[in-house]
């Protein structure tokens, strides 16, 4: 574990040194050249999604007066083995409401703002077995770390984090088939080999066994995914 961590850190540092003059020096470095050659052989992916989150706990709905909460996320991933991706996502969620009277349930004047920053790591398998496969299902499971902050008028902010896990599945529809010319342009200009529209579902267990916020719930998402395949 320790060795693999050191190797990963080396990759990261070399990547940082690959800009501007540093890039020129790195090219002359045999280790750097080897790493670049290695990078060329990798398949990576990225994307963005818009989700509706349905929390299991009822206090979110009681407090904010809405059943589901929008979540915007950016995704990335790397496939060390064909169809098996190590993935990540970073997102943001913001809600505002007013404090609730404990006696009558009336809204108080104090305004409450909740900021949530979910970070996810996961392992995803895609069921893709041919080029230009029109529909690609995938499933994944992963780790969650949710950072949150609650701001209340004239009071100190409350910060914290929650951890947990999730699993999910989606169906990705290959958009390249709809417009091959645009797909060719994406490949030529940006190196993007496949563009997908995906619809997915995710089940989260975040903070379930802890005291306080429980972010467990179901997520319905729609998004765009861009693949850069190995050469």
């Amino acid at each position, binding site marked *: 574990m320790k060795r693999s961590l050191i190797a990963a850190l080396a990759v990261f540092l070399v990547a940082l040194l690959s800009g501007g003059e540093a890039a020129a020096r790195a090219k002359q470095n045999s280790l750097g050249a080897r790493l670049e050659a290695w990078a060329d052989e990798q398949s990576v992916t990225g994307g963005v999604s818009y989700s509706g989150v349905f929390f299991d706990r009822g206090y979110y709905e009681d407090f*904010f007066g809405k059943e589901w909460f929008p979540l915007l996320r950016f995704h990335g991933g790397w496939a060390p083995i064909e169809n098996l991706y190590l993935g990540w996502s970073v997102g943001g969620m913001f809600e505002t409401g007013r404090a609730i009277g404990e006696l009558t349930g009336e809204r108080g004047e104090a305004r409450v703002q909740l900021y949530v920053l979910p970070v996810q790591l996961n392992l995803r398998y895609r069921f893709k077995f041919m080029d230009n496969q029109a529909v690609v299902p995938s499933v994944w499971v992963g780790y969650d770390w949710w950072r949150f902050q609650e701001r209340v008028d004239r009071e100190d902010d409350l910060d914290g*984090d929650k951890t947990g896990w999730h699993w999910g599945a989606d169906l990705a529809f290959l958009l390249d088939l709809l417009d091959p010319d645009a797909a060719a342009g994406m490949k030529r200009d940006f190196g993007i080999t496949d563009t997908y529209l995906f619809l997915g579902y995710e089940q989260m267990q975040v903070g379930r066994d802890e*005291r306080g916020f429980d972010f467990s719930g179901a997520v319905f998402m729609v998004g765009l995914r861009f693949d850069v395949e190995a*050469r």
Partner: protein
Amino acid sequence: MKTTFVRNAAGLIVLAACLIAPAAGAALVEPGHFRVMFGIASGHTVTDLAVTPDDRYALVISKEAKTLRFIDAWDFSLLEGPHATLSVGDPGEEPLCAAVSPDGKFAYLGLSSGRIAIVNLEPLYNLLPDQTLAENLSLTYAEFAPGNALSVIAALPEVTGKTDNVYLLAGGAGGLWWARLSGGSSLAAKSKFIIALDETLSAARGKKFGYALYRASDSRYLMVISCADNLGRCEIASGGNNPFWLMPTATAFLGIAPDPLADQFALTMNLNQQKLQLIDTWPVETMYVADSYTVGRPAADLALLVGTTARYDQAITAFGNTVTVSEVDGSSLKFTGGDHRIVEPSLNFTTLAAAGGKDGHVYAGTATDEVYLVSANPFIDDLTVIGGTTLTVADGVTVAFTIRTLINGITDYLAYKNKSFGAWSDPLFSRTTNITTGASAVSAWIEAASLDECENVVTVIARDRHGQRGRDVIILYKDTPPPKPSFKLGIGDRELIVSFTAHDPCDLDRYEIFHGDEALDENADYDLIALNYEKRTVDNPTDGKKYEVRIKGLENGVRYYAYLVIFDQSGHRTISGPKSAIPQRVSTLSEMAGEKGGVDCLGSVSGSRSGDWRSAALLLIPLFLAAGLSVAARRRK
């Protein structure tokens, strides 16, 4: 409020005389419809006049007092106030003439030293008739023709009609100069016309061209001048040095009044023969005297009034106690209908400026300090408000006035509230009267509901069947109780929070907040509320500002009642409806969830919140992926 009308009794006598032969049945405006209406005391001797393009202001300069003053044509009164009179020039330097830029933003005064004074007029246009300038108009100077007194001046647009830059023609006994002013105020170029000039007698603007009447040796010439941005200069429009020769030796000419609508013709006056000359100025290479008309009287100044509703244009000259209106057919270039003479025995006219357009007024300056209005338009006389100008809780007011005109027939009268000058729409009332004897006393009701709280500038306009307008202004004050205020009553732990947004119709004084735990009658009045409830006051509230007043020290679980009362400066007050709430503990989301917060070093995959370095290591994976993507992307490029 400007109130310096000096109603000219003599003018009204002439008007009455004209009524003996009313113009009933006349098809259009004729010379006989003109009269000298009334004088406005400018406070200083009048040297020259100019009018802004929108007809809003007449500029009055006084050589002796070295001042520039303004007559507001909205209510035909002198602009007053501490900043209304602009002193012009250094010691030993006098203003001699005035012109206004084609877009109306700047005034230019020719000075006896050869300098030009440039005045920014823009602050004037935002004023309502009862308002005064908050500070002096900006005044700058530019060297123009050092050592040469500038007695004539004209401000032109670029020859295509663009007004981004202004071209000035100015001169006097020393010749004629032109200058280009970037943005209308910054001197960018200047030069003297190189043809032999002894003296420039007059300079004026048509639509896009400039016109200069001058003397060279003993002959008089007319020069049409165009100024072009692409050339960056002014030059004689006819090409080469080919001005139009008017008359030979010993014939004196006065003034030049070009066609402001199309540059088709220009008027000048041969003083020796006491006759007007109508010059066909287009094309400029073949100018000729198209017609002449013997006025038979000398003239101190000359103006051309191009009325869109007149049968023909009107050439107006003034000298001594007489104004002469002569009819000109600008399309066939003929003097057509003779003239009409208005004699004012007590006056001595010395200068003229035509406003033109729908307003159709000519301003005539006298040797004293008065400026008289010469016009065929109807005008409003004796405008009064029955029952006073301050409305309290009344339903409205009646305004009464007399419409005077020499054009009998159907005449509209309307009133407008707080409009900008000339933007006459959505009248407070619109009525019609049939005038048969030159005057009609009318009245109209103005609903209080249609007026704003506090001050209302009400413009009353009479409009004859040709669309020619006269107007006057009256200020109405509406002082009624403020509208019912509204507020929110929020709850907190042992407190209530009253929040509201201040609304100031114009005379807001304060808000009072009352609270108590006893429910009052639904129709409780102020005295009852004040007797039973505790009061908090918000003094000097700002319009549009949100206020939040926390009433602390209350008992949780007890219902409290609150009222908001608004006061205006006259003591009028209006009470809101009551609101009630129960102070109590309130929960935030974290309190509802039992969340205490705390960041535990990223947590742990095992569920423990003690912190686990392996979790931290896992979170670095996205960074490694990003690095890999970056390298791959660079490589592909």
